[in-house]
């Protein structure tokens, strides 16, 4: 820390926030000094972004205290945060792509002339140019933002933050979409701001970055404050340890040996822009392959590419040893590959339709008599069979799907693909938004599917879930597979190290 001021700019005490009864933040603490880069770390869902959204006025706190310059404040809106000098650069950039850089920076504060009605573009561009100069950034303020690279768009967001004379700048995973040169430029600008006395909150998963740029680290886990430590003197594995918690997952489930089964799906050299970089893997019959990694690591992208939902640049897919060409989800399904989206409501289910309609949706053609008439009794009987087999709790197969719980909805998606004879199943975050009881049922179901010889790829951001379910674990980071871990050798630490690309830690 460079010359810590007497009082911190921001102090957060005992902050709580819950969303429809589910606590997201529980008694959180945080403090930030002027000229400090303070990293905020934690797994996905640890509450980092939520905490910062409370500080920047996007969410209202339930209870707790925020001190700004030592005075208690209520930050009711993004505007209120701006007035205090708190500005956030969101993970998903919030820019107007059709407007110029300068227009974006000063949106809502346009310099005007002639009775306040007309815009003064000249002053606008000059003001923007001045900020860019302060950042030593070479950028024409009149450039349309949509034509800039993501890195440059990020710079525009930062410039916007600076234009408020921000005293606190929050950056939520700013390097997620940047390459190393761009990251270096960002760090240069951050160091400059530091010298100018701006307090910076830096949310990131990348350990090496934190070592480079941050002064202190605050670790959060499950919505709770764990600890704040100086970056320079704390070993990285201590920080990882705090992030994952030392409690080991209870491994009551016995992992079957599937390492000699037939390979049913093999993917070679899969490539798609910068999202998927040379991904190779295989799945065996009866195997549950865990795909771990942080958000944005490219896991969903891999699943979607194999399923034919997104076009690929290169790569080979073999099903049971035969090379197949998958250009669309229809091709994938024809080859027995099913994909259960992480977002059931958007991609997996027609929630306004009945349970039976959803179950037979992809297979309705096999329920036609005379090639055109829908055989209602057969559909009814089949849907009924799956409802009983998967233990879907619904009053009848005619119930609307949206009236069922998340766990039961998930089972309906599973039933749908089982009926379609899919024996290679991609589960993308199968237990997201499902309560604990339903979770264990989904786990049971996955295990029994594997026992029946289905090949399963399970994407999950919850490490305990990955550790508990997988027979073998692949870890992804930035579009690449960074490692493979056998189930019995896996630990949360090991996976986190691979997911944050800290392989050197293995020796530490």
């Amino acid at each position, binding site marked *: 820390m460079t010359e810590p001021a007497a009082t911190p700019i921001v102090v957060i005490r005992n902050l709580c926030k819950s969303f429809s009864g589910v606590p997201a933040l529980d008694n959180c603490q945080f403090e930030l000094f002027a000229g400090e880069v303070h990293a905020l770390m934690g797994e996905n869902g640890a509450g980092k972004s939520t905490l910062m959204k409370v500080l920047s006025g996007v969410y209202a706190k339930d209870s707790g205290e925020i001190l700004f310059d030592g005075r208690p404040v209520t930050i009711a*809106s*993004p505007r209120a945060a701006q007035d205090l000098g708190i500005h956030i650069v969101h993970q998903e950039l919030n820019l107007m*792509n*059709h407007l110029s850089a300068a227009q974006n920076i000063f949106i809502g504060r346009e310099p005007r002339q002639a009775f306040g009605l*007309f815009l003064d573009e000249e002053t606008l561009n000059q003001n923007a140019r001045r900020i860019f100069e302060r950042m030593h950034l070479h950028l024409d303020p009149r450039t*349309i933002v949509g034509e800039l690279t993501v890195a440059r768009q990020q710079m525009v967001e930062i410039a916007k933050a600076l234009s408020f004379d921000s005293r606190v700048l929050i950056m939520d995973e700013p390097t997620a979409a940047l390459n190393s040169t761009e990251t270096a430029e960002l760090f240069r600008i951050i160091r400059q701001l530091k010298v100018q006395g701006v307090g910076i909150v830096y949310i990131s998963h990348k350990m090496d970055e934190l070592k480079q740029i941050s002064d202190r680290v605050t670790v959060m886990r499950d919505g709770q404050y764990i600890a704040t430590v100086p970056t320079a003197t704390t070993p990285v594995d201590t920080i990882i340890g705090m992030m994952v918690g030392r409690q080991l997952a209870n491994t009551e489930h016995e992992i079957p040996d599937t390492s000699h089964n037939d390979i049913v799906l093999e993917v070679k050299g899969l490539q798609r822009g910068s999202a998927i970089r040379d991904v190779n893997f295989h799945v065996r019959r009866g195997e549950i392959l865990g795909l771990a990694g942080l958000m944005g690591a490219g896991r969903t992208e891999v699943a979607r590419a194999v399923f034919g939902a997104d076009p690929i640049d290169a790569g080979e897919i073999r099903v049971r040893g035969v090379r197949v060409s998958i250009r669309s989800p229809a091709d994938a399904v024809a080859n027995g590959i099913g994909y259960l989206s992480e977002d059931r409501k958007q991609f997996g289910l027609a929630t306004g339709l009945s349970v039976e309609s959803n179950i037979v949706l992809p297979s309705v053609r096999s329920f036609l008599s005379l090639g055109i008439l829908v055989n209602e009794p057969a559909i009814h009987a089949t849907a009924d069979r799956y409802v009983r087999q998967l233990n879907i709790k619904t009053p009848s197969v005619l119930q609307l799907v949206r009236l069922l719980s998340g766990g039961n909805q998930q089972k309906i998606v599973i039933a749908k693909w089982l009926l379609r004879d899919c024996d290679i199943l991609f589960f993308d975050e199968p237990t997201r938004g499902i309560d604990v009881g339903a979770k264990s049922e989904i786990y049971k179901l996955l295990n029994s599917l594997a026992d029946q010889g289905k090949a399963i790829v399970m994407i999950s951001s919850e490490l305990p879930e990955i550790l508990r379910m997988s027979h073998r674990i692949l870890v992804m980071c930035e579009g690449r597979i960074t490692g493979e871990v056998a189930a019995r050798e896996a630990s949360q630490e090991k996976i986190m190290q691979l997911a944050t690309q800290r392989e050197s830690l293995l020796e530490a």
Partner: protein
Amino acid sequence: MDDASTPLLRGKASAGRSGVGAAIKAKFFAPATRQKLLAFGSLLALLVFFSVASPNFMQTDNLVSILQATAVNGVLAIACTFVIITAGIDLSVGTLMTFCAVMAGVFLTFWGLPIYAGVLAAIFFGMLCGFTSGVLIAKLKIPPFIATLGMMMLLKGLSLVISGTKPIYFNDTPEFSMISQDSLIGYIFPSLPIPNAVLILFLVAILAAIVLNKTIIGRYTFALGSNEEAVRLSGVNADFWKIVVYSVSGGICGIAGLLIASRLNSAQPALGQGYELDAIAAVVIGGTSLSGGTGTILGTIIGAFIMSVLTNGLRILSVAQEWQTVVTGVIIILAVYTDILRRRKR
């Protein structure tokens, strides 16, 4: 209408040679410019085609009648341009136009008020209805398509109720018809009897272009269409500005109402439905994207002219009315498809 020249000059002063080149390139090959060029090229091609195909096409009388025919649709299309740039839609512009005409009739014929009161009334009620749509959309969060569909039917009904389902004639105020039909230009250049309606169309277009490109209203119109959430998170009162945009659009519909009432020398309460689709078609042909964030008034005007040149030219070639409609449909689909192709390439 489009300030292509000013930033270039400024660029020369500050950014040096290469900067200017890049700026010209960016400006010239910007997708919006290309679409406008395409639309303008199509308009020229149509003009050339029809003049070759029929000697009657390039006659002053015919050209004046094309201009005349574009006035109402052009003004409505300008109104729609604002809303469509915000990624909204307004289906009520046609019946709103009629409603404003009827209100002018109420003020002038029923109440015997002076002409300016009728003019102000039409514009005022236009803004009021636009404001109402804006509130429904921004505050009550009713999707624009539904909110303005409701307004469309509501206003159609109101027009019929207020007028007693009969046309309101402006026989007591003969000057009213001069608003649209007289020709100021004709006084100055007797060989060019261009009716005032056309003059008003261009005046509205110029004003609208200034509002869109030079004022705070225009800035937020584009910003809302580009990324409404970003506007909100920037601390701007997005709902307020959306209501402003719909009000401005409504006011412009009021002007269209005056034009049509003055042209017909009556407010025809049953008229109006269907005009909104012609207006939206003109906007789309002119290169304004229905997904918001881009669009120009110049493009919209070109789009409106393409439609009326097409109708006029086909009529002169004695193509049956029903086939004219078919051709218009094909043109709309082609225009939107080229827009999609263009975007896919990026």
